[in-house]
């Protein structure tokens, strides 16, 4: 029979078991990423290459996508098609064009009065199978362009228009990257509200999730926005967004990242995520749970020539280097700010010259 000392030891040991089962905290979200951009309903099958859009609605007559990249490649299969097919892409570039594989432009439909500039509509003729390309008209331009970066709106969502009004005054911003913590707890209602607030912007926002999107048990982010980890190219610059909301990357994401790093090795490459691998204030550890994982990831980014890393999570502004790569933490979306840091709500603008692969970062203060 087990004596009391061994009972106590076993008690202690067994008490650790629940803690020991959290190593796969991010795996389920990676599995959802794999399913993003694919749907089948009403005799229609749609696949968005690389999962760069969320299929928000699909039936035999219409498709609604939420774009997570300036350009999309969409495979459409309509068995027994006998009527036109309406395609709506929300969160698109205001001047985005939809073309068939042979380059033929799909005529746009007139916008409805309530449509924001980033909601685009097209009507497709009767086609049983088509490969469509959502294109930016300036995709072949090698001139410098500007994008914005922000994060950590959270409970300040009702006041986010202060930031968006300021953003909207800059006609050069082509799109924005939102590095997580869109909402306070990640509920469907709050994420939908975030998307409604975005309608005042003249450009799209490509978001990844932060730890606050994990507040709801079923994590509805993927249903509304799409992939948490993805990569796209715009004007030969590569943008990679990673889901680090659990202070780690899922093993599957590391596999994808290798491919994206190789694809971006010879171009200007920006990597963004919510929780940074390392916190410049080490005692705070607002960063990856494991510094060994963090250093291995940073070493890999450096090896493939990543040019810039952007983060959120910490509600302030930091400029530092990680593995020699310039890094910026911009968490000024309105969540409880870091005190005594001399900065309030803000966002960043980044001007990129894809030819020289040079860039310039500027802070735009809202408060």
């Amino acid at each position: 029979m087990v004596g009391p000392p061994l009972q106590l030891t076993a008690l202690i040991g067994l008490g650790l078991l629940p803690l020991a089962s959290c190593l796969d905290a991010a795996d389920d979200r990676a599995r959802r990423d794999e399913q993003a951009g694919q749907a089948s309903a009403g005799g229609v099958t749609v696949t968005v290459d690389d999962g760069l859009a969320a299929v928000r609605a699909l039936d035999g007559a219409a498709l609604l996508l939420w774009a997570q990249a300036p350009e999309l490649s969409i495979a459409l299969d309509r068995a027994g098609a006998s009527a036109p097919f309406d395609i709506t892409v929300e969160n698109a570039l205001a001047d985005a064009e939809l073309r068939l594989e042979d380059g033929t432009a799909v005529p746009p439909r007139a916008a409805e009065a309530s449509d924001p500039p980033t909601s685009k509509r097209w009507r497709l003729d009767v086609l049983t199978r088509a490969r469509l390309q959502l294109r930016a008209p300036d995709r072949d331009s090698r001139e410098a362009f500007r994008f914005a970066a922000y994060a950590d709106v959270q409970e300040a969502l009702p006041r986010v228009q202060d930031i968006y009004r300021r953003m909207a005054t800059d006609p050069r911003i082509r799109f924005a990257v939102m590095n997580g913590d869109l909402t306070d707890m990640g509920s469907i209602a709050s994420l939908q509200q975030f998307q409604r607030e975005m309608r005042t912007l003249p450009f799209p926002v490509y978001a990844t999730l932060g730890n606050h999107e994990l507040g709801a048990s079923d994590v509805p982010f993927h249903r509304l926005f799409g992939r948490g980890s993805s990569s796209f190219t715009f004007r030969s610059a590569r943008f990679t967004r990673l889901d680090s909301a659990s202070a780690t990357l899922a093993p599957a994401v590391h596999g994808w990242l290798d491919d994206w790093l190789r694809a971006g090795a010879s171009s200007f490459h920006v990597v963004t995520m919510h929780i940074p691998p390392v916190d410049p204030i080490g005692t705070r550890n607002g960063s990856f749970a494991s510094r060994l994982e963090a250093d291995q990831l940073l070493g890999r980014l450096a090896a493939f020539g990543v040019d810039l890393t952007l983060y959120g999570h910490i509600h302030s502004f930091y400029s530092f280097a990680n593995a020699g790569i310039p890094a910026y933490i911009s968490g000024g979306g309105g969540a409880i700010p870091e005190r005594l840091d001399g900065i309030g709500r803000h966002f960043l603008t980044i001007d990129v010259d894809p030819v020289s692969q040079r860039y310039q970062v500027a802070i735009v203060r809202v408060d």
Partner: protein
Amino acid sequence: MWRRDRAAGYSAAALPSAVILAILLLADAPVTALAPRTSPADADGNADANANAVPDAGSATPPVLRRRPLAVAAALVPGLLLHGSGHFVGGDRRTAGRLLAAEGVGLAAVVAGLGGLAVTGAARRLVTPLVLLTNVGAGLFLSSAAADLYGTLRPPGPPGQPAPLPTVEASAGALFVHNPVLQPRWLASAGADLWLWRWRLSPVVHSAADADTVRAELRAAYRLWGPRPDAPSPRGDFLELGAGVVHHRDSQDITPFDITTGELTLSGRHELQTFAPTLAGAFLDFSAGMAYGTTHFGGRADTFEPTDLLLARFGFGFWLGRGPAPQAEVSLDYDNRHDDFAGGLKLTGLGSGPAGHFGVRARFYPHPRWGVGALAQAGSAHVLGLQLLYRPAEAPR
């Protein structure tokens, strides 16, 4: 009804662990016979508050609680919420009250720390004391629960005592690290504790067979007070100042990196028999300090970058056995380090990242010179370790 929730990332470990816990707690019939009550009364006829815990007849050993199965069950429910419930059901209301007070203090410290972090936005100028306060509070909170469980489960008879400290102790063994993101690793481990008067030198090295992963630690400590090889004591309380250097090198991946830190710590151990007689044989460990250093990235990066880390560790443990052998020491601990093999806790939900890792350590000497040590840690990785321990025979003093 418990439900497997894959989205949350939890496995089914919690349910069978609870079932096994219940079996262990109930399979203890011979030890739970109630002893007759022999409490003295004061002039007003009130029984000594601690006398409901019955002393063993015929020895100066600490008392054991009455109604042990119920006391053990109470230490779990509602004891994990109301610390001291086990002692309360077992008749030791004074200790129950003190454990509840300790829980309250710990909880208040955690609330103050986390609240301060929330209100200040984890401000860089205030974060260190607030994180330390949170760690201390959590340590007190968890230790009061563990103490209540220990007090209900401690067997009758003389409590365990620390073994006399040897001048030299060596260890050699293996470590297995399972991290789903990094390569799983088997590492060989070796270490020693070397004493000279109040000074202790403790080198430790872990290395993979291909030496792609090496972690070397060298620590020196000055014992301010407490037992030493040249000044043995039956008590285990001690306080010491420590300094150390840790070097961790990893060259498995495309960019090799190494982390080198220097650290200063204040560490100690407090025996709990002064807190409550039923807790004889148990102790609290604590350690706090800072580490500063650099991370060096090789390869294309070729850069050094500063790193720093708040060091905080607390543990609850107990001894089994008296004298050099057979004797064992078991402790459950929390360590705030994020730069070691275990790393910090990955949690589902909002809180992943800042917390460190939990672990269980055990050392058992069945023989005066030879022993075994075991380690299990859960953080970003599962770490399991097994060691052979050796302490040479020493001339009598």
